[in-house]
């Protein structure tokens, strides 16, 4: 019954947000408290693995829209709350207009709505709402680079959602329902029907544009790097995960296994290659999001319950450290005046200490140093015994990530002069503490995530080894940086990439 309140309360507050900045901040705090209270209540209610289901309007499942709070919702809601808190604390210093807080409320309302949704068309509408709000937030400072990045995002996302809509049409024509649960039953009966392949292709290709898969999401590097820091943190940490959540739900209906493996592997590897050679910190973080999404999709491809827990763990962990990295990178870039690595290293005396610490914690998290967040999550993923192909990709990506983030090492050296202190320590702390204490914290609050299940001493050796190899490679190849093709991120090429990607997905599903 109260499931509906979770998103709707946000929408109400968003509407009220216009009067003054202080009112808007107060409403943001109120919204956070309401959502936190509801989330805690719902997580406690479903601790034993049960789910809470509601059909809006009180109709039956084939007539109305179904909302359900399940393990996925329970896992991601805390991440939403943490990221929101960090973002609100971060932007306090900038005193943004009430419009920013209103957009934030709508964004979060849409995120909660998507986490609860069990209806295909409902997901379509929510994804469009997320696109729109994200698009406005990316272009918020109205600088031309941001405007162009967000326009690209909008056009490509609309194309993707157009495919999704046709997929919805195909599904409805052949099943008469849009409820995910009912669809899963119907598809399980006849998984080889041509319409199943077609629908799966259209729906997956459509969501892939929003989910951050390489080839489909060519808008991502530009949009996530051009956006204001708090927005980047939310987009990379949260909104992109919503696409993954939809793919997760789709994979529970359609047989997507092999396709996701190939997509995930391509995303992870190609993403990490671009991460390694990006010259701007925020751009590198954006590419890194691409490759980490590849991790998540590979985990989805494995399909076992433990793999699913691993995916959720890693989604949370990545949200935390990527969010932290973007916030810190934003402040660092602002302090130095530029986001390029050469400038950051040469003028690192200007970067506040807290920011450097935040960057350090985030980096340690993303490279998977035990026992921080990234390591714990990877442990669960690898503990689900994936096949050799997946393990290889994961290991290679880990090495690549360490290689890429080794470029931040010069920033972490001890400085004699103390720059002016950062004013955003609270925001960093909100994200950094869960990263550092990830395993014990989530083990207590979210037992369904099975943290600690994959921990083996060998894994520690593997993780540290991957980091070491990455650092070593970075040392060895320090001077040479190849030029990677940038044209594939332009608008027209990106459109073509979506088309090719769709054909490839169709072929994968056929075979």
């Amino acid at each position: 019954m109260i499931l509906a309140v979770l998103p709707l309360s946000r929408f109400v507050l968003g509407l009220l947000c216009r009067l003054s900045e202080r009112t808007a901040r107060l409403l943001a705090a109120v919204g956070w408290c309401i959502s936190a209270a509801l989330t805690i209540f719902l997580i406690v209610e479903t601790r034993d693995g049960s789910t809470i289901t509601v059909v809006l309007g009180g109709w039956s499942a084939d007539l109305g829209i179904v909302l359900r709070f399940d393990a996925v919702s329970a896992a991601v809601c805390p991440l939403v709350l943490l990221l929101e808190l960090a973002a609100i604390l971060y932007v306090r210093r900038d005193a943004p207009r009430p419009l920013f807080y209103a957009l934030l409320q709508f964004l979060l309302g849409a995120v909660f709505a998507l986490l609860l949704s069990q209806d295909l068309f409902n997901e379509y509408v929510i994804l469009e709402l997320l696109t729109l709000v994200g698009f406005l937030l990316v272009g918020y400072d109205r600088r031309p680079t941001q405007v162009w990045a967000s326009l690209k995002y909008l056009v490509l996302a609309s194309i993707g959602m157009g495919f999704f809509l046709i997929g919805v049409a195909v599904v409805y024509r052949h099943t008469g329902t849009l409820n995910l649960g009912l669809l899963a039953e119907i598809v399980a009966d006849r998984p080889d029907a041509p319409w199943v392949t077609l629908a799966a292709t259209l729906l997956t290709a459509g969501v892939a544009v929003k989910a951050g898969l390489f080839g489909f999401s060519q808008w991502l590097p530009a949009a996530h790097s051009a956006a204001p820091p708090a927005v980047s943190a939310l987009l990379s940490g949260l909104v992109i995960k919503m696409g993954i959540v939809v793919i997760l739900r789709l994979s529970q209906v359609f047989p997507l296994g092999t396709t996701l493996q190939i997509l995930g592997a391509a995303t992870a590897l190609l993403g990490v290659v671009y991460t390694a050679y990006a010259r701007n910190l925020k751009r590198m973080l954006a590419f890194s999001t691409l490759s980490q999404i590849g991790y998540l999709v590979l985990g989805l491809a494995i399909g076992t319950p433990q793999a699913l827990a691993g995916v959720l763990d890693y989604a949370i962990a990545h949200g935390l450290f990527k969010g932290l990295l973007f916030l810190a990178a934003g402040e660092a870039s602002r302090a130095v005046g530029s986001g390029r690595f050469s400038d950051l290293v040469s003028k690192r005396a200007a970067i506040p200490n807290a920011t450097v610490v935040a960057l350090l914690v985030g980096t340690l998290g993303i490279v998977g140093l035990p026992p921080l967040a990234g390591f714990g999550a990877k442990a669960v993923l690898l503990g689900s015994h994936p096949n050799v192909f997946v393990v290889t990709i994961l290991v290679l990506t880990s090495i690549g990530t360490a290689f890429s983030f080794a470029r931040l090492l010069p920033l972490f050296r001890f400085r004699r002069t103390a720059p002016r202190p950062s004013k955003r320590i609270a925001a960093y702390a909100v994200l950094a503490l869960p990263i550092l204490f990830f395993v014990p914290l989530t083990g207590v609050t979210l037992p369904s995530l099975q943290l600690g299940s994959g921990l083996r001493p060998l894994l520690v050796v593997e993780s540290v080894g991957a980091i070491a190899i990455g650092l070593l490679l970075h040392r060895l190849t320090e001077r040479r940086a190849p030029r990677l093709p940038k044209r594939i991120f332009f608008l027209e090429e990106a459109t073509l990439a979506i088309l090719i990607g769709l054909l490839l997905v169709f072929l994968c599903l056929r075979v």
Partner: protein
Amino acid sequence: MAFSVGVVLFGIGLVAIAIRRDLVIKLLALGLTNAGSILCLVAVGDRPDARVPICAVCRDAIYADPLPQALVLSAIVINFAILALALVFVMRLVERYRSTDSRHIEDLVQRDLDEGGGP
């Protein structure tokens, strides 16, 4: 039949987005893709010799399926909203870069990024 037309319209719109360089044409093409996908959705609710689904007791004849029509209402409004905003952003870009050529704008944006390196 209508479904096929919808898919073809969608395809034409896609090709136009990929090929034509003018931003306004791209937006028109986006509108065309939206129209195509909406047509697909409505076509799915069609039945041979269907009547308008306004009836107190709907069992005596064949009525069109009301669900796709209801879904399409939402889709139309959403697509309108997206196009309006996209147009606003295109206007913004044109004011700044004095051009509606997407390639040209990409190059200028690239140059802005390389120069500024900015945050």
